[in-house]
């Protein structure tokens, strides 16, 4: 690796001013599982690396009254095994448990998975379905951005110079809702999604879908909401036919490329299959028969 300066601040203010002072090429370091390979292969050469793991706000993992707080530097393995996450947000626990290997999950973070902004980020579609918010801190203060608005292109985010992710906040899950994420990979572990689909359904007392969310991974320049699929579902009673129509809409909405992992056509096909399966998994979790 090319030489760089290293700092390990203990407060958020210190971390932000270090990053802001070193210019746009400086990088925060959390788990390092994406950052260090990029530096090793000289795709980026930051003059300063700011290890943010010593900042207490970034290590917070807690279910409080206003929802779940996931600090930007919390390792994926902590999230995947946290009792409140497993109980209330199984889609987050499951998707955090899919990333990389045991070794990667013991270092890599949900914050890094989001801010690295790859289209195949496994943890992001589930967060999008849950309406999660990203809390950012920068030289001009704090702001909140919907997780679905953080990524703007492959490797590109809305974060400005000196700005960093503090935490992801997820509201308490609505009553009568279930969410799940499924991806397709040739290997079960240590692989990158060819396509991934998360969905969330909230069902009211009459058995009608009051809220539907569908979000896709690895089939567009960023993780993507499938809004037409959501519209097809909302206000309806879930049937096999409706699931099929929603899955077809999701496949039509994605904008995949052909690459070494799969062709665009294959990815569209996978989106339809995975969308059907996640919607059915949600119905099962809600104890409803088709």
């Amino acid at each position, binding site marked *: 690796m090319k030489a760089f300066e290293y700092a*390990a601040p203990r407060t958020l203010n210190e971390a932000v001013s270090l990053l802001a002072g070193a210019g746009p090429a400086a990088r925060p370091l959390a788990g390092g*599982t994406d950052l*260090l*390979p990029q530096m090793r292969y000289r795709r980026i050469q930051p003059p300063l690396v700011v*290890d943010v793991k010593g900042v207490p706000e970034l290590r917070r993992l807690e279910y409080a009254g206003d929802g779940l707080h996931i600090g930007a530097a919390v390792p994926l393995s902590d999230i995947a095994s946290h009792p409140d996450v497993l109980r209330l947000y199984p889609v987050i626990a499951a998707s955090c448990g899919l990333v990389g290997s*045991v*070794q990667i999950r*013991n*270092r890599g973070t949900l914050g890094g998975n989001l801010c690295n902004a790859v289209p195949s980020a496994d943890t992001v579609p589930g967060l999008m379905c849950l309406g999660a918010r990203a809390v950012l801190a920068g030289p001009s203060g704090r702001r909140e951005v919907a997780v679905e608005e953080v990524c703007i292109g492959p490797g590109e985010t809305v974060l400005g110079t000196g700005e960093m992710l503090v935490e992801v906040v997820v509201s308490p899950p609505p009553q009568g809702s279930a969410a799940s994420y499924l991806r397709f990979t040739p290997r079960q572990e240590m692989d990158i999604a060819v396509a991934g689909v998360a969905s969330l359904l909230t069902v009211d007392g009459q058995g009608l879908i009051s809220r539907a969310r569908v979000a896709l991974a690895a089939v567009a320049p960023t993780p993507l909401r499938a809004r037409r699929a959501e519209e097809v579902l909302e206000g309806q009673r879930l049937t096999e036919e409706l699931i099929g129509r929603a899955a077809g809409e999701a496949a039509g909405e994605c904008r995949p490329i052909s690459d070494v992992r799969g062709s665009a056509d294959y990815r569209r096909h996978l989106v339809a299959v995975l969308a059907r399966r996640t919607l059915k998994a949600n119905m099962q979790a809600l104890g409803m028969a088709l």
Partner: protein
Amino acid sequence: MKQVVTLTVNGENCQALAEPRHTLLELLRDGLGLTGTKEGCGDGNCGACTVLLDGRPVNSCLVLALEAQGREVVTVEGLARNGALHPLQQALIDHGAIQCGFCTPGLVMAAYALLRDNPHPAEPEVRMAIAGNLCRCTGYDKVVRAIMAVG
């Protein structure tokens, strides 16, 4: 510029000099002479450099040396007791689970952490626990059987 890193390795307090661009793997091998830990891919795919950092298996090629300040590291050299191999190491030998041996130190550390947390793992649990450890000789079946024989 080099800085002093103070850490615990295999139960002993150690000091080594490292630059920010050095990894924990380089500190262990070049700074402390603990060459049991291997560098395979150097980017977190192969698991050959697996060590325990504060008890958890990590790829030491993806940890900066300076991040190890004040932390506790266990390498493959830390498992034998009084000259006797750890039962897991002996099981790998007994099951013929070592061919070229390059992946073995990393596999041992990943499996050690698994058995510590889950003393009697089912086969799928073993396979998932070592999914981040590539064996170029593809001796996985013997490795899995060896780990299960200890559990």
